[in-house]
């Protein structure tokens, strides 16, 4: 009797999960189509479809394939990457407020960009790839620092240490950033701050191809580790008791989370809120199990950033609002609502 009850609940839950995932996929598809139609150059949905099928004018081709499409794909990819990175970090640190920013990735990347701009007065002198690579290195080094300080032989990673050291390193890097920013001229500062605000300024295919390998390799990797994440989420002592090689798994997953987040930050600037909010959103919809939570988180993140980017392009036409700001503006109230609901 009890057995059937559980399996019925199970079936219902699975049905619900499938529904959630499908709705999110449809949402992304819808946002994709709307985004394709959004921009200074007016194109009817019919024009868009025609152009996608190869019957558009040269100008429509250019706008769709070179300006809008890469940007949409980058938005979805970084949304997925940051969200999954956040979900993994929340499990590893067992801290619901963890996100890629907490292990210093954003501040590390930001500092390196600022130092570069400060010392080589014009960011343009650099080849287009240099800034993302620098940001990647900065984010990686910051995370590595946090990681080394938090690691204890025999004990593995302590989640509290990870969070505290992350906060400390981030503030240290931010302090350096502020210090240096006082010494650079307004134009340089503007460049850095636009970059930091998450304006996706590099929107062509080369950045899609640079980002894609990370996403394609690391997302499935993390997904195949979902059972491990479930166990780790129980806390190190319990996980050890259950036979998990805690330290080793933590290192692998942390490396994956850092790889995802810093490659996203490198391409997009720091779009901070996604890594925090997308996992929470997904968790409310599909529950704690990472097998389903991870795909849901990825979709939620992709949808969030895509919608934010589309809104950012649409609200103040022909000017654009940096995506990071839009994410924060739509994310923050929802997040507060979530906290409010959870408490009640």
């Amino acid at each position: 009797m009890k057995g059937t009850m559980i399996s019925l609940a199970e079936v219902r839950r699975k049905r619900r999960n499938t529904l959630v995932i499908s709705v999110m996929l449809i949402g992304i598809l819808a946002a994709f189509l709307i985004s394709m139609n959004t921009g200074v150059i007016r194109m009817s949905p019919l024009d868009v479809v025609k152009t996608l099928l190869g019957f558009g004018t040269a100008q429509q081709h250019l706008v769709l394939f070179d300006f809008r499409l890469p940007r949409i794909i980058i938005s979805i990819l970084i949304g997925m990457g940051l969200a999954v990175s956040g979900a993994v970090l929340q499990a590893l640190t067992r801290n619901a407020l963890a996100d890629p920013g907490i292990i210093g990735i954003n501040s590390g990347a930001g500092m390196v960009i600022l130092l570069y701009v400060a010392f080589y007065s014009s960011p343009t002198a650099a080849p287009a790839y240099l800034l993302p690579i620098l940001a990647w290195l900065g984010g990686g080094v910051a995370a590595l620092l946090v990681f080394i300080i938090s690691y204890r032989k025999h004990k593995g990673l302590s989640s509290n240490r990870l969070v505290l050291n992350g906060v400390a390193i981030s503030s240290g890097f931010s302090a350096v950033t502020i210090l240096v920013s006082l010494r650079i001229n307004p134009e340089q500062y503007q460049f850095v701050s636009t970059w930091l605000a998450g304006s996706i300024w590099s929107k062509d295919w080369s950045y899609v191809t640079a980002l894609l390998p990370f996403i394609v390799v690391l997302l499935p990797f993390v997904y195949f580790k979902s059972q491990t994440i479930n166990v780790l989420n129980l806390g190190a002592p319990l996980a050890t008791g259950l036979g998990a090689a805690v330290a080793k798994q933590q290192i692998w997953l942390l490396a994956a989370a850092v790889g995802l987040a810093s490659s996203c930050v490198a391409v997009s600037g720091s779009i901070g809120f996604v890594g925090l909010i997308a996992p929470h959103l997904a968790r409310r919809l599909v529950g704690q199990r990472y097998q389903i939570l991870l795909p849901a988180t990825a979709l939620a993140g992709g949808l969030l950033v895509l919608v934010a980017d589309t809104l950012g392009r649409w609200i103040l036409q022909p000017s654009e609002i940096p995506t990071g700001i839009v994410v924060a503006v739509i994310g923050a109230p929802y997040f507060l609502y979530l906290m409010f609901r959870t408490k009640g």
Partner: protein
Amino acid sequence: MFGKGKKLVIVLLSVMSLSLVLAACGGNKENNGNANNAATESASPTPAATETAAAPTEQKLTDGMGHEVTIPANPQRIIASYLEDYLVALGVKPVAQWSVANGIQEYLQGDLKDIPTIAYDLPYEAVTSFTPDLMILGANSTVDGGKYDQYAKIAPTFVLGDEVNNDWRKALLKIGEVLQKKDQAQKVLDDYNAKAADAKTKLQAAIPDQSVAAIWLVGNKFYVVSDKLSSGTVLYNDLGLKVPNVVKEISASGTGSWNEISLEKLADLDADHLILVNSDKATGSEALKDPIWQSIPAVKNGHVYEYDRTSSWLYYGPVASSQMIDNVLKDLVK
């Protein structure tokens, strides 16, 4: 059993969504090429029948950043954002003009009155919507982060580069070359030089050995023009006016065209005449009520000539410089 099936569905859906993304990428590469060709094809054969004496032909030039650019013979739809000064000097009308959230280049509006504006950061689609056949850009920073390749897909794009862009004489001649109006550019330059030389003699007769500084008031802070950049070159180089010691000192340590001057330094300002560009007029210019400002000798003597932020003093180029000379003559040669 059932659970497994559902799980498979979810995995399949995720894989499908990912492959959709991948397919979109892969498929695009070809279209990319197509759009490219089509864009260049449509760019060249537009020029309307023209009857210029020496019929100009398409030319290949290397721009300030090393790009080889094919410039159409007779570009009709030019975007040269923040370089409109030169176009006006050469009698060319762009299809769109530079703008920021709070303004446009007012001092050029006599010539650019009905020309639509484009945001200063030149978003791709906004540029595309004007279907330009030539883009001329100034500073290297305008094509940051791989933007050049994208602009070049819209229209042939010529970047002057920082070195040329920072010297309006060089920029004028370069733009003259790009637009095949070399002689005209040279004439504009010669006329300017003659005008400056004439003004210089008049100034030396009227106010011999007196110094002038240009001060910009914005956000309650004072900035002083560098003795070697921007409007500073007009004052001190072209017109041979004397550089006040404080200006020399600040220019030596600062790097910008306009460098901030502290209130203490302001008290020491040893200029006989002050050109004040006041961007704070709308907010009441509180800083001008400060006793330190009031105590500057030039202010006490009433030798302050005020201009608002729309005047040419904050800009740089043949038209702006020429207007500055007019201003100086009006103020200082009575």
